């Protein structure tokens, strides 16, 4: 069958830093293949599980399966994996990251090797599998289901955070202690798998690198408050790669230093993303539509630019108290502080930390409209958007809109519907500005 030349689906980027990401993504998978040939352990991981620095300190090479799903979607090569998972009995409404991952695993097992032309060389069979309950439920259930396709030893940890209305002073030790024990369990498991004990000095070093990269990332985001916008959201959804997948390495620190320098330069010279910036949009939440990142450029063609985002965004820097002398305890403290950063503010105001964060972003970045993306197959980032929107409505008269598709499954996306909704949203921002 003759196919049409596929239309461009990825987005044109604004910064050189973002353009470097493609190679870094490729390198993730390449380095996994290489690591195995050098006898290092490769682990399926879930991003933002707060354990990245531990893995780096123990020479475990992270293989982020979720990212691979996004990659397949960006390359529009997801159908064979999605349908394979569906053939294996996974529902069409199950998390599509999980479906791509499981479909890929299933296909690799069936073929006895890498699926032909798998994006970026494909994911090798992992040596270990490390799930977590941070962010969402599929992140440990999916890896549990992997047992159907591989024999790699599997371990999962809890990543828990307290509800907003609690008394932080009363619950702090309880949460920190639990998180610490969870990390210790993971370390014991990894020590058994690698046959090597964790070197705590090395862990301090990877933590230092991790914190530094995230501090620089935060700094670059703060620079983005400048008008006009010099770094749009499509760039953000690229620069998150070193933050999440290279966390705890010098490479990530160097990358973000370059990013800060570039953004600073562009701000000083007003090198705008769009020549005539009319509307500044906040990406309010939801996983991005990896299959159609081009829509950012479509907005830009009408002078509307996405200037900041509340998704895949680093936590604001936190100060772990000095009395914490153990690196594992430090990680537990850091996780607690990251997750509770806006609890007190929320208690004093809206009662909702997400709303507080968005209100801060609206103010700091001089926002004209808020965009949400509801993903058919993602509960964790989708449920609550309407609630957030309803609550924001009490504090802000900005136009807010919720688009629906999926992070990777194109079957839930309608270009015609999106275009119509984009124009309605633009109109709403225009009439408010009048």
């Amino acid at each position, binding site marked *: *069958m*003759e*196919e*049409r030349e596929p239309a461009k689906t990825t987005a044109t980027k604004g910064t050189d830093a973002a353009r470097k990401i493609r190679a870094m993504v490729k390198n993730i998978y390449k380095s996994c293949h290489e690591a195995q040939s050098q006898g290092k352990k490769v682990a399926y991981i879930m991003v933002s599980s707060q354990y990245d620095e531990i893995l780096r300190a123990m020479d475990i090479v992270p293989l982020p399966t979720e990212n691979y799903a996004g990659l397949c979607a960006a390359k529009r090569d997801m159908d064979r994996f999605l*349908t394979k998972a*569906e*053939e*294996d*009995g996974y529902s069409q409404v199950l998390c599509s990251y999980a479906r791509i991952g499981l479909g890929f695993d299933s296909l690799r097992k069936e073929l006895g090797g890498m699926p032909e032309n798998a994006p970026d060389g494909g994911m090798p069979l992992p040596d270990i599998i490390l799930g977590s309950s941070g962010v969402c439920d599929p992140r440990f259930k999916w890896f549990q289901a992997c047992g159907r396709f591989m024999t790699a030893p599997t371990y999962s940890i809890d990543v828990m955070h307290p509800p907003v209305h609690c008394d932080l002073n009363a619950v702090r030790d309880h949460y920190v202690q639990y998180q610490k024990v969870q990390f210790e369990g993971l370390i014991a498991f990894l020590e058994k798998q690698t046959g090597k004990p964790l070197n705590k000095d090395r862990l301090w070093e990877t933590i230092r690198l991790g914190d530094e990269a995230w501090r620089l990332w935060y700094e670059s985001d703060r620079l983005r408050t400048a008008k006009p916008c010099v770094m749009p959201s499509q760039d953000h959804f690229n620069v998150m790669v070193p933050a999440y997948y290279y966390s705890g390495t010098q490479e990530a620190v160097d990358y973000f230093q370059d990013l800060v320098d570039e953004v600073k330069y562009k701000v000083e010279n007003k090198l705008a993303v769009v020549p005539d910036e009319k509307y500044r949009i906040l990406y309010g939440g939801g996983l991005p539509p990896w299959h159609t990142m081009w829509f950012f450029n479509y907005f830009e063609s009408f002078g509307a630019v996405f200037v900041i985002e509340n998704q895949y965004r680093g936590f604001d820097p936190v100060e772990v108290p000095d009395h914490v002398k153990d690196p594992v305890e430090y990680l537990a403290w850091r996780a607690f502080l990251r997750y509770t950063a806006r609890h007190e503010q929320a208690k004093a105001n809206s009662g909702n930390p997400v709303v507080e964060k968005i209100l801060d972003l609206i103010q700091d970045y001089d926002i004209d409209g808020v965009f949400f993306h509801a993903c058919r197959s993602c509960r964790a980032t989708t449920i609550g958007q309407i609630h957030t929107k309803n609550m924001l409505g009490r504090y802000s008269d900005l136009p807010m809109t919720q688009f629906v598709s999926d992070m990777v499954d*194109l*079957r*839930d*996306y*309608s*270009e*015609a*519907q999106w275009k119509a909704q984009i124009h309605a949203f633009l109109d709403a921002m225009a009439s408010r500005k009048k």
Partner: protein
Amino acid sequence: MNFAGIDIGSTMTKVVIVDEQENIIQELIGPTGAEHRHLALTVMKEALEKTGLIFEQLGFIVATGYGRINVPFADKQITEITCHARGVRALFPSVRIVIDIGGQDSKGIKLNQEGRVVNFVMNDKCAAGTGRFLEVIAETLGIELTDLGRLSLQAENIVQISNTCTVFAEHEVTSRLAEGAKIPDICAGLHEAIAGRVVNMVRTLGIEKEVVVTGGGAKNPGLVKAIEGKVGFPVLTPPEPLITGALGAALTGKDLADKGLAPDQERRLEGVTFFK
């Protein structure tokens, strides 16, 4: 003794009467209306008249299809899954996979060597992968449903339709038309999409030779071709794909009689009064 099967599908009602040697002695197809009960009666009456039989000469009457519960004179209601399997077993004993594409649902059935159902899968909550999908799109294209298959065989550059959601696909077709795509190319793209969806569903059963396509979908040469493309080898189609379920129903009735089961007398009487 003769045996009748009546299959009330979402769009068509089918009746088959077989004799004791399992020969089809009558087959009749009529549209399904809103009033199933009345319609079932009319079609059955007509089939009997044409055959020169009276109601009492029928052994078992088995109703199947989604309107099966609305056949007051039937002795038994059996699902179309079991009936399709039975019908296919009579037509093509070597078949292991049945792909049935009906008006409002599509299904896959896996048979073992004895022709018994060992697994099945159904899509009945969404129009994607059903005749209804093609009907909606044909309307959008301004062509007859029956022309879709013929037209699609003239395709030169198949247009890829990525949405199988009927509403989304309608949008997509409209924009492809606006871009100047040719109707045969779109038709072929639609068949690709629908075949992809249905075959993927059937893959959950594990596809094995032989494969038969039944139901209204089997009458569309473009769709059958697309299915063959996805399956990777030629598929079979019955001479009259629409009656497979009704045939299976009639034969299931015969099987029941062979087992020594007798129809419920009260029901029969109710049936007889109906026909007077």
